[in-house]
């Protein structure tokens, strides 16, 4: 299994396509950071218009922690599309090239190959997420400095002390890894069905877009199925940044408002991963290789 994983990783990181995602993430983050560094104060003033009518906010609001939150809000919706580029090609790419027959004639079983390929694709996904964390969090902290995290939600504001923030980002990135691994496994499932690369890549992207729209639409008919859609849960990393208050309306340091919601989301995402990978293994084992 270890040799399959290192072999697959070698193949992934040899392809120029792999680095499109790294390049795209770096370009987007650097452009947004540049924009906020040059003209961030007017952006912050626009966001804080309602608050400034009542209160004077003193401190470095536009600090690295807030910049990272803004970046994650923007990017974690789109990174799944970049993950699909690689994951959805893992089996179908071999079928397209006619090398799948060759792989399955080795002493390793089909299940070992599929699982090895999935683990390799998952490592790529995690490395991409670490790259995102390095640029979005640590580069932002270096460029913009650190202070309390002043989060403006639609109906209320959350002020989290700076020494209470970093562990929340660790939690958020771990959660995001589950979200992205769900996409990896979906791409993998699509890849096991098709015999060319384009179909599964476009299919995975379409599924993500389709289910994301269903998840964000507030139509009662869709509310019944929303809890079961993985896209509904993918954005729940934000729950790490909502805090409990006591009866005196004092925020409780180190608390998370809705731990149960995070747990439920992790269970739903994990179930999807197991289901998608399990189905991919089943399909591949039964697959009649004609290419």
């Amino acid at each position: 299994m270890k040799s399959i994983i290192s072999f697959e990783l070698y193949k992934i990181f040899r392809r120029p396509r792999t680095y499109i995602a790294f390049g795209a993430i770096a370009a987007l983050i650097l452009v947004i950071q540049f924009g906020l560094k040059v003209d961030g104060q007017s952006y912050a003033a626009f966001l804080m218009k309602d608050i400034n009518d009542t209160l004077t906010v003193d401190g470095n609001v536009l600090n690295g922690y807030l910049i990272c939150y803004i970046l994650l809000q923007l990017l974690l919706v789109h990174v799944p599309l970049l993950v699909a580029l690689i994951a959805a090609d893992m089996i179908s790419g071999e079928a397209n090239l006619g090398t799948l027959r060759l792989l399955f004639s080795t002493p390793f079983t089909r299940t070992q190959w599929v699982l090895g390929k999935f683990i390799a694709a998952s490592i790529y996904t995690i490395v991409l997420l670490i790259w995102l964390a390095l640029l979005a969090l640590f580069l932002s902290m270096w460029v913009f400095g650190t202070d309390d995290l002043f989060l403006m939600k639609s109906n209320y504001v959350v002020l989290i002390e700076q020494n209470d923030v970093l562990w929340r980002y660790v939690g958020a990135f771990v959660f995001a890894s589950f979200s992205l691994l769900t996409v990896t496994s979906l791409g993998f499932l699509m890849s096991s069905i098709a015999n060319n690369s384009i179909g599964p890549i476009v299919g995975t992207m379409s599924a993500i877009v389709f289910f994301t729209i269903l998840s964000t639409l507030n139509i009662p008919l869709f509310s019944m199925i929303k809890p079961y859609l993985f896209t509904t849960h993918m954005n729940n990393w934000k729950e790490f940044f909502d805090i409990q208050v006591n009866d005196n309306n004092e925020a409780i340091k180190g608390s998370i408002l809705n731990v149960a919601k995070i747990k439920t989301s992790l269970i739903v995402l994990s179930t999807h991963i197991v289901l998608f990978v399990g189905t991919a293994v089943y399909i591949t084992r039964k697959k009649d290789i004609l290419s």
Partner: protein
Amino acid sequence: MMKKLFAIFALLIYSFSSLAQVDPLIEKVSKKLALVNDYVGEGVMKTDVSFIKASLGKVKVYFKKPNLLKVKKDGGISLLPKGGVSLTINTLLNTKQYSTIAAGTQVLNGKTLTVLKLIPTDENLDWVIATLWIDPVEALVYKTATTTKENGSYEITMQYGAYANYGLASKIIFSFNTKDYKLPNGITLEFGDEDAAAKQKALKNKKGTVEITFNNYVINKGVSNSMF
């Protein structure tokens, strides 16, 4: 006829000048406050605004005569009522540009307090009218209500402890009216469910408070102008 007019004019001048006189109680309070040229107060600040979730934070309050005042949080973002914090008793009374009107007495937390209204004589001042609830025996101000030109009305309630001799409070509560807070989902990118309880609270309560509980004051040791 001229004599009568002169008499009416003199009477008017006398009545206005008696209105504009500074109350002896205010003089007593001012005298106490005059003992303090500057101070640095250390304390804990609590922000209680319906649409804000914030924890307690350590703050330092810097004051320098006549009316320089700054509240700084120890490494962090502080939220203070707009324009309200600068209108403490020191900053109100140290301007010396006001007239006082007696408004009777009132019982507040078991203490019988003299109520005085201050009207600024300098139209460039930020405030329009201020009401002071003063203990005539201790010469301590327990409550002020100030209406400002641009930032609405504020109430400041004081409690006294070890530094009462200097007229410095051990606890100050700023109360103020808050305006609606709402950001479109398209800007916040929050399409999921938000904390329903917090949302409900934000809609209901339109009054906010900022409490500072002081642990310690450093008085008359000098404060640099760069702090303000």
